[in-house]
């Protein structure tokens, strides 16, 4: 483990993926993904529907187990650690879910304070102060007593970010931050991500298929297609890429719609689907 740690950590990488493979049942979704996320950068994982980008994110936060490969996160290979060690890492990692995933039975304030109440022995008054601070950072000051159902889509997402930041994480993950939001609200969420990066120098990983948003917030991008990394680089590098699939994705060139079930499954898995079913 030590020797691995050295090779991986020379690069100042916050997260390192090495030949990561993930399967659901017999269907392999990710076919050997490798890349690094550097400390303090915003990395956007781009990909179409069914490309495996959401599975990749779920694997990064430990919600799915890889079939093989390594995920180095804060110096530990989370593909091979105990549940207790994973919990320690999770306290330093924040995740903002697509729909917000706020607990409907709790107020916004209780949602944001939950990780603090669970994992720290802070006084209620201290938690109250942190809570106000976090809500202020996401532009929701004064909304602590609202229930999630009373918030608009954009506000829910902001509240979810506040909750993800409650424990002062070093890494923040976003799943489709602008999904389901109108362009103006979505731009607000993009701005929030930029602000967080500027203010806290956090390492941020965003999964999205929104090109405009991706190019605005990213330092570097990874383009995933059918479970493989097909391009990785800065926004400028990606823009000048000549890879046909990258061009197709960035230039938004339509693909003939698949209408056959087998073609669809094949498109998703790139395997002969008859084998897996």
């Amino acid at each position, binding site marked *: 483990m030590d020797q691995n740690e050295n090779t991986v950590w020379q690069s100042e990488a916050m997260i390192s993926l090495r030949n990561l493979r993930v399967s659901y049942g017999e269907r392999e979704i990710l076919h050997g993904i490798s890349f690094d996320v550097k400390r303090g950068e915003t990395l956007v994982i781009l990909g179409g529907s069914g490309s495996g980008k959401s599975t990749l994110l779920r694997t990064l936060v430990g919600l799915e187990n890889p079939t093989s490969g390594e995920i180095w996160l804060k110096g530990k290979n989370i593909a091979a650690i105990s549940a207790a060690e994973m919990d320690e890492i999770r306290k330093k990692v924040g995740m903002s879910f697509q729909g917000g995933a706020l607990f*409907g039975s709790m107020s916004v304030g209780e949602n944001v304070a939950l990780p603090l109440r669970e994992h720290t022995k802070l006084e209620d008054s201290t938690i109250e102060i942190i809570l106000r601070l976090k809500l202020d950072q996401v532009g929701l000051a004064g909304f602590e007593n609202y229930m999630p159902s009373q918030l608009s889509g954009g506000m829910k997402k902001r509240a979810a970010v506040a909750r993800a930041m409650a424990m002062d994480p070093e890494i923040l993950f976003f799943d489709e931050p602008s999904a389901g939001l109108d362009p103006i609200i979505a731009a607000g969420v993009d701005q929030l991500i930029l602000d967080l990066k500027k203010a806290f120098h956090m390492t941020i990983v965003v999964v999205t298929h929104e090109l405009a948003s991706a190019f605005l917030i990213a330092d570097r991008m990874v383009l995933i297609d059918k479970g493989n990394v097909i391009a990785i680089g800065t926004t400028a590098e990606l823009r000048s890429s000549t890879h046909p699939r990258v061009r197709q994705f960035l230039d938004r060139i339509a693909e003939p719609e698949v209408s056959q079930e087998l073609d669809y499954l094949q498109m998703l898995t790139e395997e002969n689907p008859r084998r897996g079913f």
Partner: protein
Amino acid sequence: MELATQIGGSVLDGLAYLGALANLGVRAAYFTFVGPFRGRPFRFQRAISQAMQVGVRALPILSLITFFIGLILALQSAYELRKFGAINYVASAVAISMTRELGPLITAIVVIGRSGSAFAAEIGTMKVTEEIDALETMAIDPIHFLVTPKFVAMMIMLPCLTIWANSMGILGGALFGVAQAGFTVHRYVIASLDSLFLRDIASGLIKSVMFGITITAVGCHEGLSTGAGAEQVGRSTTRAVVVSIFLVILVDLVFTALFFFLSER
């Protein structure tokens, strides 16, 4: 051969299901009895609010149903007893069938309808909206946070509700006793109490604790195994109710048989 394979498969599935329920129960027991000594405090507040929901709010409907059941029992047993001029035994017939069997069973069925289904729907919805995932990414164990308080609330409230149901059933019987069998309320209650042994009441309460464990385990397990999409929540809720009713009756049979052979001597 085909049939044998199918039967074998179903038996294995059934055992795997029971295994999953047992796993859930054991983990909840760990968080109740061991967790607090390992720095994972027990959630009294959540357990109390669950107990309110499961227990106290069920009282009006449960009272009404068990009162009627007591009355029905009195009518049905009087139909037979009066042929022998033994209508006075209505009190003991009602009291014994309520405390040994119908009190715990009707309570369990009301609680399945109110709370078993609610557990599955609540946890299933949280699963669909990624709230369970969110708990996990915050290093909060969903079993500790969601399931354990429900187990504790159920195991405490179900016997309490059963005692209440027993009393309401006897009261329902008393209505018939007073109106038709020449009892006074006081004499009816005395006659009921005289006919009961402690083991009648205790066996019913032990059963009700087991019912509580079964209902919570099934409701929470169905919730946690909800797939993606809103219609899956409905499916989980339905399954929670059907499976709970079946398993409660099965547990009832096992324990009734057990008590029968234990008291035989």
